[in-house]
């Protein structure tokens, strides 16, 4: 598989009175064509900011301090605003968190999809309408002709999320940024939405970057997983490898905190919380919560190194604790 998106050295700061919040700190990430990459981390770890940064939609007080985003061989940073706009929604689409509020309340859902088709695919009103109904059918919305003329408040949360997915996929994007697509939906609906995403990406060949805090979601549909902590990518590995051989202490802790029905284990919460990102100290940002911490961790930041083929980790201590679980 070839690379579709390559993020290198991306740093995003938010300027506040007390200094800069270093929301995303020198991250490197690659998404290959057609794959589903899970981006996992606690709230405030910089996952959503990363997806907005890919679309160049960081606005003041936010600022992209450094970094480079290559999409399909093109440096997105070098494009004009107008060129960038033509990529948003057409080649890189986004499925937002909270489907109910991410749809415009005063437009019918059909109109919200068809206008994107007219804009990005250059379809006529009639063609767009036809294609819009196909999309609604594809995401399995019953009675699409009726639903298309309804407003978001007349649809359930799950239905709204299907509409969002139809909207995002209508223009056949190459990359789908799905930001917590299942929050606020109940478990059975969430599972159906995930199946739908997986199936549609397989059918259209679109790659997905799935932003989530839920490892259960990751296990369900991802090919590879990147773990973020406090604005940094601490580990990245194929999905099974990550679950079976987590190398970073944070990932290990995350895996241990998944509730299991097949084994009788006590859930272990991760001690502490994400450190303040306002002028954080140098060194590993997990040091304050880490059981393996050494002096070196507090002064310099561990680089990403290969733990196994296709498996990278940013930790000084992982070698000596390789066998510990």
């Amino acid at each position: 598989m070839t690379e579709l998106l390559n993020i290198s050295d991306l740093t995003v700061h938010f300027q506040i009175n007390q200094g800069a919040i270093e929301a995303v700190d020198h991250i490197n990430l690659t998404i290959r064509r057609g794959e589903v990459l899970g981006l996992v981390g606690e709230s405030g770890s910089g996952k959503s900011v990363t997806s907005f940064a890919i679309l160049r939609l960081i606005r003041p007080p936010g600022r992209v301090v450094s970094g480079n985003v290559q999409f399909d061989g093109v440096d997105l940073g070098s494009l004009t605003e107008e060129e960038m706009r033509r990529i948003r929604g057409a080649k890189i689409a986004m499925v937002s968190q909270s489907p109910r509020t991410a749809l415009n309340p005063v437009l019918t859902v059909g109109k919200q999809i068809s206008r994107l088709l007219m804009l990005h695919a250059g379809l006529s009103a009639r063609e767009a309408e036809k294609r819009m109904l196909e999309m609604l059918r594809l995401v399995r919305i019953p009675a699409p002709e009726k639903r298309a003329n309804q407003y978001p408040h007349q649809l359930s949360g799950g239905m709204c999320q299907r509409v969002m997915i139809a909207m995002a996929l209508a223009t056949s994007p190459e990359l789908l940024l799905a930001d917590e697509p299942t929050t606020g939906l109940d478990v059975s609906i969430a599972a159906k939405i995930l199946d739908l995403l997986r199936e549609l990406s397989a059918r259209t060949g679109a790659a997905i970057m799935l932003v989530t805090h839920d490892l259960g979601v990751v296990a369900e549909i991802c090919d590879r997983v990147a773990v973020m902590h406090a604005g940094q990518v601490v580990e990245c590995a194929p999905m099974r490898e990550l679950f079976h051989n987590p190398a970073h202490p944070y990932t290990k802790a995350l895996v241990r905190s998944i509730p299991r029905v097949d084994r009788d284990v006590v859930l272990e919460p991760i001690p502490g919380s994400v450190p303040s990102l306002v002028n954080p100290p140098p060194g590993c940002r997990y040091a304050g919560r880490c059981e393996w911490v050494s002096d070196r961790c507090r002064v310099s930041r561990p680089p990403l190194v290969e733990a196994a083929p296709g498996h990278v980790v940013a930790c000084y201590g992982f070698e000596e604790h390789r066998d510990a679980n």
Partner: protein
Amino acid sequence: MGFFYYVTRRLALALPTLFGVSVICFTLTYLLPGNPAMVKAGPFATPEHLAEMERQMGLDRPWPEQYFRYVSGTVRGDLGESASTGRPVSQDFLQRLPATLELNLASLLIAIVVGIPLGVLSAVHRDTFIDHLGRVVGIAGVAMPSFLTGLLFVYVFFYMLNIAPSPLGRLESGIEPPQHVTGLYVIDSLITANWTTLRSSLHQLMLPAATLGLSAIAPVARMVRSTMLEILESDYIKAAWAAGLPRRTVIYRDALRNALIPVITISGIVFGFLMAGNAVVESVFSWPGIGNYAVTALLTKDSAPIQSFILFVAVTCVIVNLAVDIAYGLVDPRIRLS
């Protein structure tokens, strides 16, 4: 069906308000300094003459009976008689109403046409020079009393620059009013293609409408600004940017359309406020409307026109609020009646 029921119910809800207003207007006659009978009888009336006048006016009857007579008269369109013009107040009102409506509608139009873009610009360019300028203009418009802005406008545009006509009424002297259709000169002269009158009436309307409109720009602009700011941060606007919609569409279609919903409310409130505020402006520009009529009545302690003016403003507010509620349903699908 549902719509009809809704309107009927809303009208029924207005009844208690109207009852309260009628009580206030009624009591006001007794609170105003000076006995209405004395005003009517004149300063040289003898006590016998005064008693006779009181009896004629029903002022010697018990107050519930007086209230009942007042309400039944009002419902039948009998608003009493103006002591100074000697004509029925209802007749005076009907004659002057179009002038007031024309002025208020023009002011509301100015407030909306200036206020909405000002609010949008302030929100889009938040905390920049444009935003601050908008704030200053808005606050100045509210803080300046209308009689002062009115006089300033007259001084600058009529006296100094001589680009506005003399502030005397709705038409320049020598120009005939247009054929009566709605009573609004601008509209009537448009309908009858009477260009000379149209020009003159617009010319005369310009300054008073600007004066009154200026005081209403700020509420509209502030409301649009704060709603726009909130909406620009909303999830669906973020989603709209992420979907690659052009800036024009995102701001002027997606965001503004949602921001206009509260503007309907504020327009209703502003209209009621203009109805009451026009009294001063009409006096400054000798505008022959009901505000001017009420001020004159106030100065001569003529109670029936004052009562009627208050009642009229209150009823207008009730009607405008009803219209606002109905308009809401048309713009916001979430309120559309099922």
